């Protein structure tokens, strides 16, 4: 999951940042909104070279940011969006994304069969999965003493770890940690569940070093933190710098998040947008993601081509689709979103 810290949002606020790849004389043009650095910098150039379609990149820092823009402008001005799974469901319910014509995306065959059966969009009728992964515990095996295995190791840390743990503060994962620890669904909006999670998370707050959604892995590397709440791909950034860093999915389980690509309903170049999705699904383009940003992709052809040495160094890259699908999938909360975000505000605001 790519969420960028509030700094980037602050820096970007008010000014959209465009990296334009101009191709003189190209007849068609599509606008793609993605997280910064989530695809190779030359991807659009290569796409233009291959298809003759001009492509422009707009950057969003968070799902909420692009969601706000698309809801406000009915998606006009954008052709392809990269958003996380719950947001696909929301956009679909709002009628803002187009139904995909699979005949125009032959490379869909490169996906694992499991990646065609995801609950937020069965059969990938409105979205194509781009990357996926889990959320768990990332820790310094040389500093934690006992190997962590439960969400409670994070929420009620042993005395030696107090003040040396960090948590994600992005709403779904903050709540997810407590929901999983208490045996609830990560998609719950039940009032009693929210209240119980709130109580646990407020009590966990006093043992935190900090909430950290962006630099937690460097806190492990420096030794400031010993155990952090992390997305698997980001834990790999720590492992790359210190081999004592390990990733574990707690015994209570994890969520399965999927970052996807959708075509806006408002797109005036749907054919070109489909060509772009197809281009991304090429094995070589899919393989860039695990090799460079250490995220797993649902692209079987790409994962099969992955260098085994990488999986050895970053074991969570080797997680199979079956293992991933065992985790509960993040879904849109619908009308329950209001009570959910109010609870999150109350947790973060309690001093």
């Amino acid at each position, binding site marked *: 999951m790519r969420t960028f810290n509030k700094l980037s949002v602050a820096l970007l606020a008010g000014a959209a940042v465009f990296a334009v790849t101009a191709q003189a004389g190209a007849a068609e043009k599509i606008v793609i909104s993605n997280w910064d650095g989530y695809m190779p910098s030359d991807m659009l150039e290569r796409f233009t070279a291959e298809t003759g379609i001009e492509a422009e990149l707009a950057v969003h820092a968070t799902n909420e940011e692009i969601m706000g823009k698309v809801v406000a402008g009915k998606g006009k001005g954008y052709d392809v969006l990269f958003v996380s799974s719950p947001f696909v469901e929301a956009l679909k319910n709002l009628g803002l994304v187009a139904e995909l014509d699979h005949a125009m995306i032959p490379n869909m065959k490169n996906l694992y069969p499991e990646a065609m059966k995801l609950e937020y969009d069965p059969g990938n009728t409105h979205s194509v999965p781009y990357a996926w992964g889990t959320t768990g515990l990332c820790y310094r095996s040389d500093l934690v003493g006992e190997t962590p295995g439960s969400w409670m190791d994070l929420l009620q840390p042993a005395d030696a770890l107090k003040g040396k743990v960090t948590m994600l503060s992005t709403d779904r994962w903050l709540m997810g940690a407590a929901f999983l620890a208490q045996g609830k669904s990560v998609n719950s909006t039940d009032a009693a569940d929210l209240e119980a999670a709130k109580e646990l998370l407020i009590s966990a707050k006093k043992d935190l070093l900090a909430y*950290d959604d962006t630099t937690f892995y460097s806190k492990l590397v420096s030794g400031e933190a010993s155990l952090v709440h992390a997305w698997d791909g980001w834990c790999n950034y720590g492992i790359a710098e210190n081999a004592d860093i390990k990733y574990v999915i707690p015994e209570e389980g994890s969520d399965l998040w999927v970052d996807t690509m959708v075509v806006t309903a408002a797109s005036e170049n749907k054919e070109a947008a489909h060509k772009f999705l197809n281009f991304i699904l090429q094995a070589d383009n899919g393989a860039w993601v695990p090799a460079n940003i250490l995220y797993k992709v649902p692209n079987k052809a790409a994962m099969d081509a992955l260098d085994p040495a990488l999986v050895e160094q970053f074991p969570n890259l080797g997680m199979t689709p079956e293992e991933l699908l065992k985790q509960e999938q993040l879904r849109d909360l619908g009308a329950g979103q209001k009570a959910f*975000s109010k609870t*999150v*505000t109350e947790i*973060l605001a309690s*001093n």
Partner: protein
Amino acid sequence: MPRSLLRDWLLLGPGLTWLALFLVVPCGMLLVFAFFERGVYGGIDYIFTLENFSRAIDPLYLSIFLTSAKVAGLAAVIALLIGYPAAYAIARAPARRQTAYLVLVMLPFWSNYLIRTYAWIVLLNREGLVNKGLAGLGLVSEPLPLLYNEFAIVTGLVYNYLPFVVLAIYSSISRLNPEVLEASEDLGASAPRTFWRVTLPLTLPGVAAGAVFVFVLSIGNFITPDLLGGGRLQMVGNVIYDQFLTARDWPFGATLSFILIGIMMILLFSQAMLVRKAQGEGGIAHA
């Protein structure tokens, strides 16, 4: 004179238009948003409600306002205690050096706010320069908790806004009529007495301006509490930020913003009154 009145309006025109379009209109919209319900996916559902205001006075959010005011007040007081002597020293330095000193005061603004804030993380963290230094000197056995707490937030705010205080007080002190000080001396007052009875009262407008600057900029700040406070201690700016960017509850964010703007306006108004009062008192300070 109608003609000079016309001229005044023409000169004020661009500034007033700018303020009206980019300050008054957005603030007006903010107030309007505060009276409606949130949409599920962000935006506004235009159903009238007062719920946002009743929620804002919940003890949870009141305590956030109080915490924010405490942190901002502390930052303002510390910035004054550091900034006043510095401004005094600069104003009393030889005239040819004053510009150089003032440039040095402004120098940090040449780098980005975020970079300066991140630099404090490098200094203050458990494995940071300060703790390593203290441990190296044998002064502490366990690293001190310098980061991710109120201390770190106040430090960051004081550091970032200190130049405003120095500049505001410097301008007050440098405008002080030296003859007033000479008169006090001639009449037998000691240097400390002259300071307490003459210099300080006459430079109070600068003190007030500096303090209000720091307070107003601090109370709405969200980057410093987020980075140096580790998000554990939330200030009202953080709650507002979250309402707009993650909780997608614009109306509640608007309500909190509105209350915050109200607090700031009261403060700025009080400061303006103080300046007016000081200027009204016989005009001892040169304009």
